């Protein structure tokens, strides 16, 4: 076993099947994001796309420990979370391209990607808004006496908005089954989060609000998997809300259109060496998994997402009357509006 610090921490007792699944899923997310970036370049996606390349470990480490009927509420950077929660990439890509057959019939797009059928209650275009919404989902779960868990994943920039305080306090006051995961990639758009954040960081703040909190290397999917597994088990057992701060790095610009001029190229290059997929692949190789099996994951993922992208490109626009559907039950926006 290598002592390389970049290799996953818990590579000692690897559940190989589980880790292979993680590896495969991370590649699927990566390939989905690459296809989304292509869609952006080809001007088939006009709205903002926030790729999660480099942060796949968190989507996988968290969502692999959630049941389909557990709830997830995500951020603007939500493709990976949604895919990891079990959504169909074909419907997702159609959504990104604004096409019929999209998860939301093309009405939400990337920033509002959602699949309620797998408990994915939506990405959110408003930073931190998913935090108290998650507390609410957990509140409903508790009121209904269910054993589900509600989870939200948000960025390190979100910890400076009111809902962070209000949502965490709420979850703890009512001892709700909620898991809060901060995807701490060090940046909020073009700004180093540390420059605009006082104190000891996300976990310390959560702890001061009474939530058991821990720091994990979010690029170490093995460690995160374990941490989330334990947290979810405790929460599901009625132990109240918990908090995990998962350190990571975003390997692309903030959006597909962001030239990323605010980070030193060296920093980005160094971060690529800590890429969660590479690290897991290394651990798996060290554990004896054959290179071609790992390569197949990559190839299959790219193939899958290429097909997904092709499908979306060929899909029709939603019928125009969808613009007037699903507003509300009473009143008719087609006539009441004019």
């Amino acid at each position: 076993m290598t002592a390389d610090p970049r290799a996953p921490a818990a590579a000692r007792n690897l559940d190989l099947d589980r880790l292979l699944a993680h590896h495969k899923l991370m590649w699927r997310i990566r390939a989905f994001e690459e296809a989304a970036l292509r869609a952006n370049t080809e001007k088939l996606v006009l709205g903002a796309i926030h790729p999660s390349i480099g942060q796949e470990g968190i989507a996988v480490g968290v969502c692999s420990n959630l049941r389909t009927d557990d709830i997830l509420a995500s951020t603007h950077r939500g493709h990976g979370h949604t895919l990891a929660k079990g959504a169909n990439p074909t419907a997702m890509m159609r959504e990104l391209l604004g096409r019929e057959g999209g998860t939301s019939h093309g009405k939400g797009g990337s920033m509002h990607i959602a699949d309620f059928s797998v408990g994915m209650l939506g990405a959110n275009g408003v930073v931190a808004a998913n935090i108290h919404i998650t507390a609410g989902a957990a509140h409903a779960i508790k009121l209904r006496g269910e054993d589900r868990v509600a989870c939200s994943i948000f960025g390190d920039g979100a910890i400076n908005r009111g809902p962070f305080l209000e949502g965490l306090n709420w979850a703890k006051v009512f001892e709700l089954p909620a898991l809060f995961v901060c995807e701490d990639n060090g940046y909020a758009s073009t700004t180093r989060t540390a420059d605009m954040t006082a104190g000891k960081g996300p976990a310390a703040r959560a702890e001061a609000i009474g939530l058991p909190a821990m720091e994990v290397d979010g690029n170490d999917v093995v460690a995160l998997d374990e941490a989330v597994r334990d947290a979810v088990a405790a929460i599901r057992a009625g132990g109240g809300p918990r908090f995990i701060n998962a350190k990571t790095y975003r390997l692309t610009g903030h959006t597909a259109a962001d030239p990323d001029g605010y980070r030193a190229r060296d920093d980005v290059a160094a971060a690529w060496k800590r890429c969660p997929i590479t690290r897991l692949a290394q651990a798996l190789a060290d554990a004896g998994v054959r290179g071609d099996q790992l390569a197949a994951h990559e190839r299959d993922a790219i193939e899958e997402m290429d097909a997904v992208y092709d499908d979306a490109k060929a899909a029709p626009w939603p019928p125009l009357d969808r613009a007037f559907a699903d507003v509300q039950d009473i009143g008719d926006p087609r006539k009441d509006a004019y």
Partner: protein
Amino acid sequence: MVTMTYGEAAKNALHEEMQRDPTVWALGEDLRRGGVFGQYKGLPELYGPDRISDAPISEAAIMGVAVGAALSGTRPVVEMRFADFALCAVDELVNQAAKARYMFGGQAKVPIVVREPMGMWRSSAAQHSQSLESWYTHIPGLVVVCPSSPVDNYGLLKSAIRCDDPVVYMEHKNLWALEGEVDNNDPLPLGRCRFLRKGEDITLVSWSATVHEAMAAAETLTGEGASVEVIDLRTLWPWDKERVFDSVKKTGRLIVAHESVQAGGFGAEIAATVSDVLFGDLKAPVKRLGAPRVPIAYAPPLEDTVRVTAVMIAECARALMKE
């Protein structure tokens, strides 16, 4: 048929809906003590702290939690205490609650009722007196209700709770103690106005507390020989256009009176619509009576300066009827 106050009517409605549907629950500050206006008194004892839930002073979380809980199979009734405090939770109401159903392509609905006690309540000053109902009419996805009487507060709150979409439910703080007969056990339809008085010469449209000013004005005018039709709009969105049109077609004259600021108020929407649709049928211009564009002052005489009163409505009506 039973007499009760406006506040009791709402309490009874909530009580019955909570009995009927175990997924209904209420959340807000100090609810376990019955709410700041006593409008929840007795319910905590009946339903316990889970279903009549206290809340931290966290308006944003109260609303955000309600959205999450509504997306997850419950029907929260949100108590905002004063409509003014709802301004601490606008993202949650407007960007989240109102848009979720649409944004997610119909995958979910957000059945919440947001109770926002509104309006002037003697010497409550600028941050505890606002009437911002027109804001909500402008937001796709929201239903807006402003009851003026016990019977309506009973029937409309029931409907609001049963409604699958977010309803901004604005009770007027000055009406809590108003007594009236409640002659039905059923929900009243959202989107339907109430004719409080039939007449031929002029139509007065109003809602919330100002309805009572309109009725007093009608009384006066009737004494002077005029025949006045008074419509309580009750639901501002969707508003009962057809019935208002029918009335104005008949009378040819319309005054819209409301407590809120006239500029950008919902009276403008009604006046603009009626002036357009009934262009040829109007005997006189549609008039609006609302507050001047000033914050609400604390001193009683200054507060009174911006009130829309029966006297003002009657005067405006007399002038119109000359045309």
